[in-house]
């Protein structure tokens, strides 16, 4: 059973293989979870905890355990990417959406697993956690969008339980900037897709690699258990050395 909702300003699509009331309920639980996360972490809601922290009305110590966890994840991400991943925007405001999305997908997937389901995927805005097999008993297949023609798929991969995420400039404009040089337009690379042990890590690394421009793919190559597929403005894809093994449906 598959369902989709627009939450956190993005399409969220979840499929749990099978039919029945328990699956319907699990899907609703997952969507409700994303709505709760949005209430706490939305920078667009004045009443959200993140907006109150941003305005200095709420300290991190007073915030929820979840909020502190997200801040800790963001801090580690900033260190690992040498500042390319930063939840503080150039204007000084907090915007943790780059890490909240991946984290929320992972939590939602963990909840579905805890409810006893093995075969499912959670796709929030193109960032995907998947588990087990599809309804045909095959590994889940993921198509990477053509950044030049969005209705087209230019690569098919099988993440086999790993997380996959894509960052790019083709929809959201310059929503990702180089924190070391905010004025520099990121126009050489159109999109970066990352496969990593978790979707949160894939999401964070895709964001950071995209912000690095052409060096992003080399950065990914240097990381263990991480593979990347970078599409540049010449319509050429550059991939890391281990990416090829995800192009086959079986390991």
């Amino acid at each position, binding site marked *: 059973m598959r369902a989709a909702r627009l939450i*956190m*300003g*993005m399409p969220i699509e979840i*499929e749990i293989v099978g039919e029945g009331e328990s699956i319907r309920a699990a899907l609703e639980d997952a969507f409700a979870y994303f709505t709760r996360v949005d209430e706490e972490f*939305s920078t*667009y809601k004045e009443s959200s905890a993140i907006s109150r922290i941003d305005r200095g009305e709420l300290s991190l110590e007073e915030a929820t355990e979840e909020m502190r966890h997200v801040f800790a994840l963001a801090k580690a991400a900033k260190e690992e990417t*040498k500042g*390319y991943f930063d939840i503080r925007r150039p204007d000084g405001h907090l915007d943790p*959406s780059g890490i909240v999305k991946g984290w929320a997908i992972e939590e939602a997937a963990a909840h579905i697993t805890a409810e006893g389901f093995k075969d499912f*995927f959670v*796709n929030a*805005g*193109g*960032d*995907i956690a*998947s588990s087990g097999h*599809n309804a045909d008993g095959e590994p*889940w*297949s*993921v*198509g*990477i*969008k*053509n*950044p*030049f023609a*969005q*209705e*087209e*798929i*230019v*690569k*098919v991969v099988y993440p086999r339980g790993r997380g*996959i995420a*894509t960052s*790019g400039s*083709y*929809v*959201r404009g310059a*929503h990702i900037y180089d924190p*070391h040089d905010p004025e520099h337009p990121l126009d050489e690379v159109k*999109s970066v*897709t990352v496969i990593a042990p978790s979707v949160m890590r894939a999401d964070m690394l895709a964001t950071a690699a995209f912000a*690095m421009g*052409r*060096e992003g*793919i*080399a*950065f*990914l*190559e*240097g990381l263990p258990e991480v593979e990347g597929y970078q*599409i540049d403005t010449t*319509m*050429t*894809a*550059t*991939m890391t*050395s281990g990416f*090829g093994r995800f192009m086959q449906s079986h390991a």
Partner: protein
Amino acid sequence: MKKAIIAAVVVAASALYLFIRTPAASATQPQPVPISANVPSTTSAGAPPAGASPSGTPSSGAASGSAPTAPSSGQYKDGTYTGPSVNAYWGYVQVRATVSGGKLVHIAFLQYPNGHSASQYINSQAMPYLTQEALSVQSANVNIISGATMTSMGFRQSLGAALSKAANS
């Protein structure tokens, strides 16, 4: 500091690798010059073709100052050799190699991409392993699609702008 030294050694090894594998067959100038040739890169007339044996015609002098010296016993002729500026994907790399006693004794970086603090770390290891392909459209018969979809920020900004426009008109 120890890390930095190790990183530098890895960088040097990678660059040397690049330097050596640079194709030498091109007829256009400037020519890539492999280390095994006894040809300082900026020497023009009378230079033997790149890739000539080290025992070939002695060259007239090294562009970078130190002239080749007496016959050497090693694989290379003594002197200082400047390599071509090579596009190493992330930027340009150019090195100068010093041969003494027939052996490579020093490599200096004349050009090195260092626009970002992360460059050295990144460049030192990754480049030789990356592969490229031209984009080609695949079957759209997949379970899930990954792409940079419209998320919160763009969606709401766009919506907000549209609404404020609507309000003003």
